[in-house]
C-alpha cells in the first residue's frame, strides 16, 4: 500500500515539477529581462540629467554675472522715471511683453509666467501680447491666441545680448501701433533656488511728459520719444537677462531632483533585479533537484 503511494507520489511530484518548469521560470525570465532593460534605461537617464545639471550650473554662474550687470544697466535707465515720478497710463492701448524661452525641463518657469500673464489678461482682455520664447507662446496661444501680435523664438540659448533686445524693441515699433502703456512680464531672480514672476512698466513718451516731476529736466522736444524707445530696449534686455538666470537655476534644481529620483529608482530596481535573479536561480535549482530526486 505504502509502496503504491510512494510510486504515485514521485509521478505526481514530477508532474507538478514539470508544470512549475513550464510556468514559473519562463515568467521569471521575462520579468528579469524587463527589469534589466528598465534598469539600464534609468541609469542612462540618470547620466543625462546629471550632465544637464552640471551644464546648467556652469551656465548659471555666467548668467548671474550677466544679470547683475544688466540690473545696474536697467536701474540706471529707470532712474529718470523714478525721479520724474512717472506713472503708467491706465487706459488706452496696452501692450504686454512676456519674457520666456524656447527650452523646457526647467521646472515651473514657463507655466508660472504664463499664469501671471493670464491673470493680468483676465483683467485687461484687450491687451496685445508680444511673446519672447516658444514655451510661453504655446501656453498662451491656447486661450489668448487672438491677443498675440508678435512672437520671437531662438530666445534663451545663450546670455541675451543688447542687440537682441534692441531688435525686439525695433520690431515692436515697426508694428506701427501706438501703445499707451507697456508692461513687461518676466521671472525675477530672488535666489539660487527661488524666482518670482514680476512685471515692470516700460513708460511711453506721454507718460514721461505728463510726469509730476518732468519739468525739473531740461530736455529737447523730440528727445523724449528717443529716450523712451531706448528705455524700452533697456527694459527688455534687463527682463531677458533676469529670465535667463532664473531659467538656468530652475533647470539646475529640476535636473538635480530628477537625478536624485533616478538614483532612488536605480536602487529599488537593482534590489528587485537581484531578488528576481536569485528567485530564477532558486527555481531552476528546485527543478533540477526535483528532477534528479525523481529519477532516483
Amino acid at each position: 500500500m505504502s509502496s503504491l503511494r510512494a510510486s504515485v507520489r514521485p509521478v505526481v511530484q514530477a508532474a507538478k515539477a514539470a508544470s512549475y518548469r513550464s510556468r514559473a521560470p519562463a515568467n521569471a525570465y521575462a520579468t528579469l529581462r524587463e527589469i534589466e532593460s528598465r534598469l539600464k534605461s534609468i541609469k542612462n537617464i540618470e547620466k543625462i540629467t546629471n550632465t544637464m545639471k552640471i551644464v546648467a550650473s556652469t551656465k548659471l554662474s555666467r548668467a548671474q554675472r550677466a544679470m547683475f550687470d544688466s540690473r545696474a544697466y536697467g536701474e540706471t535707465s529707470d532712474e529718470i522715471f523714478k525721479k520724474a515720478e512717472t506713472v503708467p497710463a491706465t487706459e488706452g492701448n496696452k501692450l504686454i511683453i512676456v519674457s520666456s524661452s524656447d527650452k523646457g525641463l526647467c521646472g515651473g518657469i514657463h507655466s508660472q509666467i504664463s499664469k501671471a500673464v493670464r491673470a493680468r489678461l483676465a483683467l485687461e482682455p484687450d491687451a496685445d501680447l508680444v511673446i519672447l520664447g516658444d514655451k510661453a507662446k504655446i501656453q498662451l496661444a491656447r486661450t489668448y491666441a487672438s491677443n498675440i501680435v508678435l512672437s520671437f523664438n531662438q530666445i534663451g540659448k545663450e546670455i541675451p545680448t543688447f542687440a537682441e533686445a534692441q531688435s525686439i524693441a525695433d520690431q515692436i515699433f515697426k508694428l506701427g501701433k501706438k501703445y499707451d502703456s507697456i508692461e513687461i512680464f518676466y521671472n525675477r531672480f530672488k535666489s539660487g533656488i527661488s524666482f518670482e514672476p514680476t512685471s515692470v512698466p516700460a513708460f511711453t513718451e506721454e507718460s514721461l511728459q505728463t510726469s509730476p516731476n518732468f519739468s525739473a529736466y531740461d530736455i529737447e522736444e523730440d528727445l523724449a520719444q528717443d529716450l523712451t524707445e531706448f528705455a524700452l530696449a533697456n527694459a527688455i534686455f534687463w527682463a531677458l537677462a533676469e529670465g535667463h538666470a532664473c531659467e538656468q537655476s530652475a533647470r539646475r534644481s529640476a535636473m538635480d531632483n530628477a537625478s536624485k529620483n533616478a538614483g532612488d529608482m536605480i536602487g529599488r530596481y537593482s534590489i528587485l533585479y537581484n531578488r528576481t535573479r536569485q528567485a530564477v536561480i532558486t527555481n531552476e535549482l528546485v527543478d533540477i533537484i526535483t528532477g534528479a530526486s525523481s529519477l532516483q
Partner: protein
Amino acid sequence: MSALRLATRSVLRSRQLAAPWRGSFRGYAEVPSDRIRLNLTLPHQTIYQDADVVQVNLPATTGDLGVLANHVPTVEQLRPGVIDVVEESGATKQFFVSGGFAVVQPGSLLSINAIEAYPVEDFSAEAVRAQLAEAQKNATSGSEVDQVEAKIELEVLEALAAVAK
C-alpha cells in the same frame, strides 16, 4: 492679483519719493556738495557705479557738455565720442562711446546708459583704419539696410579715428 501688486508697487514708489530726498536712490549718504555721483553702465559691464567724481565731459548730439556738481537736470543723447571722467584723485579716464543717453538727475546724480564704451588706450589706429576702409566699401554697395548700417558704422569709426592712437 498682479494689478494689485503693481498698484502697491507704484504707491510705494511715490511714498518713497515723498520722503525727504537723500541724493541717491540706493539710499546711501548724500552726494558731497562738490562732487557728482556717476553711474556709467553698459549692457554687459558697469564701469562706474555710485562713484563720486569731480567732472564728466560728455559728447552730446547738441554739442560737448561738461557736467559738474549741482548741474541742472538734463537729458542728452550721446553721439560717438569720448567721455572724460575726472576722478577725485585727479586722474582723468577717457572712454570712447558709440552712443547712448546721459541724464543728469536732480541731486547731482549722472546716469549714463552707453551701448559700448572702452578706454581710449585700448584702440589701435591701424585696426580703426582697416575697419574704416571696409565700412566705406559697404556704404556704397550692398542692400539698403547694409548701406545704412555701414553709414552708421562710418560715423562711429570717423569719431574713433580722431581719437585712436
